[in-house]
């Protein structure tokens, strides 16, 4: 299984800074090709949110480059990944919190990171960015750690009400604010000819899942160019529909390389 990866971001129609950060890496390892991608939606006054999101993205990318290889001498397990990533979050949570305290500001960030190996995907997730799997249909892989999501689970709000609720951007978990972060983890088997997408909440409020399917279904994601174009079209739609947030999306297409 091989990967194509592409990403796009837009500051949006209202904000002056883009506080989203993301990064991805295709890794050639002893256990075959792997794909690592991470996306963070930062928050905090002025350009502080960017500091938080970039800090975390860099930390995770550095982990993928420097530490992952060492773990591959033995078969990778869910527990190993969990321990590694939770430690990374703890360390950076403290670091961002300390920075915020020094500067007298509140800053924080969401986190959604995915590692896809030849036979398993691993996701760690904090906040309300999302990961999706798109094949014949679209499947959400992550659960929002947000106030409205909790209200939906408790039956106090419907999905539609939640989208209009003024508290829709209020998170229950994020990195850099609380003393302890409680990330969610997801594991599963990755499919070939499938699109894995992670995005900030700005990318998904104004477009429907049907529209996401329409543009991001695997047959329409042939190469980096077409992927980029499709994502940009959706970003454009979001802006036309008056989304005010920063908008970021990263897609990974899995495929079987043709053997000559």
């Amino acid at each position, binding site marked *: 299984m091989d990967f194509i990866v592409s990403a796009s971001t837009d500051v949006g129609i209202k*904000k002056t800074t883009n506080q989203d950060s993301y990064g991805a890496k295709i890794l050639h390892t002893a256990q075959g090709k792997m794909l690592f991608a991470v996306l963070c*939606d930062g*928050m905090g006054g*002025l350009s502080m949110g960017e500091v938080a999101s970039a800090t975390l993205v860099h930390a995770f990318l550095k982990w993928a480059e420097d530490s992952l290889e060492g773990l591959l001498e033995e078969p990778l397990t869910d527990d190993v990944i969990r321990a590694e990533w939770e430690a990374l979050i703890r360390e950076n949570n403290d670091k961002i919190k300390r920075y915020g305290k020094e*500067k*007298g*500001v*509140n800053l*924080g960030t*969401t986190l959604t990171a995915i590692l896809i190996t030849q036979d398993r995907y691993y996701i760690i997730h904090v*906040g*309300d960015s999302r990961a999706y799997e798109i094949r014949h249909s679209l499947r959400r892989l992550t659960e929002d750690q947000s*106030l409205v999501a909790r209200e939906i689970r408790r039956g106090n709000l419907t999905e539609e009400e939640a989208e209009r609720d*003024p*508290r829709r*951007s*209020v*998170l*229950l*978990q*994020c990195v850099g*604010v*609380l*003393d302890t972060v*409680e990330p969610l983890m997801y594991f599963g088997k990755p499919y070939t000819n499938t699109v894995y997408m992670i995005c900030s*909440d700005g990318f998904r409020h104004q477009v429907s899942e049907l529209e996401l399917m329409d543009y991001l279904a695997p047959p329409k994601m042939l190469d980096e160019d077409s992927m980029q174009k499709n994502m940009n079209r959706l970003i454009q739609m979001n802006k036309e529909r008056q989304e*005010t*947030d920063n908008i970021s999306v990263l897609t990974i297409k899995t495929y079987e390389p043709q053997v000559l």
Partner: protein
Amino acid sequence: MLQIGSLVDGKYKILSKIGSGGMSVVYMAINEKANKTWAVKELRREGVVNYEAVRNGLIAETEILKKLHHPHLPSIVDVIEDQDSLLIVMDYVEGVSLNVNLEEYGAQPQELVIEWGKQLCDVLAYLHSRKPPIIYRDMKPGNVMLRPDGNLTLIDFGTAREFKVRNIADTTCLGTIGYAAPEQFGGQGQTDARTDIYGLGATLYHLVTGLNPSEPPYEIRPIRELDPTLSGGLEKIILKCVQKNPDDRYQSAEELMYALENYEKVDDRYRSMLKVRLASFFAVLALAIVFSFLAVGNQMLASGNQGKEYVDLIADAKTTADYETSLKTFEAAINIPDQNGQSEAYLGLIQAYKANDHLFTVDEARQLERLISENRDALLKNPKEYVDICFETGKLFWYYYAYGGIENNQVTRAKSAIEWFQEVMRYAPPDYENLAMAEVYSNVGIFYRDIQTAVTEADDKGRYKPLFDNIVQMTESIAKNENESEIVRLELLELGRSALQQYATKLKVDGVTEDEMRALLSDIRSILEDIQTTTETSTNRKEESLRHIGQTQKAIDTAFSSGKDQ
């Protein structure tokens, strides 16, 4: 940065740096002419990215505060600006924020939280009655200072100045926005007085449970689920404050104040307490009936029996293992007709309070005060016995009163004791052995009661020297007395030590010499070192006092070194 020791605006001498926020530094300063301490907040242009915006914000905050005058609000006296910096001179609020208290001690005692709640209602009612109303919007323990006299001061008007809905359209983590009421998220109507009711409810919840509702799991649960000993009345009050819909909350701070004043009335425990009272009433009634039968036979014999009953009950009270029964038995003894003027049962009760847990709780205080005031006329027939009870009661308050947590309520204890020592001074025969000591206690208590107001009104000069003399006398006659209880000795030594640390500069201005201060401190230290403690609490207190000797030393150094600079 302001130089320590420098003079600002020809008036304010900078004494020390006391804190720094994101963009500003706060110093303690003294106006030597008026002998009053101030806090000076400095915002410097350099190092602040958007200086103008921050400056305008601070000025706006200052403008609000300048117009306000309330015992629970800091006042601002001066704004001094040049091209490099902005200085704001305001009340120096002594004490710690309730946040720090929570971090150090966790959940706070319920009675205290209710008292704080009432004070905060008072200040909110004041703010809301301004024209136009000022909505504070950021009520939380971190914004409330607990002063050494037990009163609160509400600080930080950064949010109040905005007069608008907070912008929470952007992604935000709940942990960063405090106890924001639902309407503060925008789109759900204006914020008004009821927004502050929500914030106060959340604050009371945090204080009484130790759980921060703005941290996971972000919930305000019925408080008795967390601690079944808490009051059902308070539980109802808090839940009503934090209703999602503002219409379902208390509609004004006054309304909430009324509820807090009467929280026991909606309390289940209150009802069971009434039952207990009723039961003891019947017990006394039964005794009375027995005695009245006897009285029919022989008046003399009846009286003798009452005396015997009194002695027996006291003996029972002293020997019973069950504390509650012991208190009730002492009370029954006091309630025997014609015996209520004798001091023995009262003194026994006082001894029992101390022996139980070395604390004089709020409920115990209520019982004792009720018994004494109900029987005051009878007691006054024998002034010597009455003043004995008063003197012991005064000491009980002074050393053991638990209101607000024994470690931090020194001032509250001293204040509560005053009236008892004054009662001694009023009724004691001239040769009463404890008369002089009662006067010393009373003077020191009065000092602590009045000093905060005196400082605020710059009227404190001349009060420190008498305090010093009283402390010296207490140290000589009580702390040095090896027959006194260790708690009493440690307490007095700490009182002396903390006064030296806190008031070194003021004592100097009042004419206490460096040598006198050092002599007292060295006495305190050597007595402390000599005291052999027998309990863990005492050991901790002793070590705590010894640990602060160095800082006290330094405070004296500073007081006198700054004098040499001039």
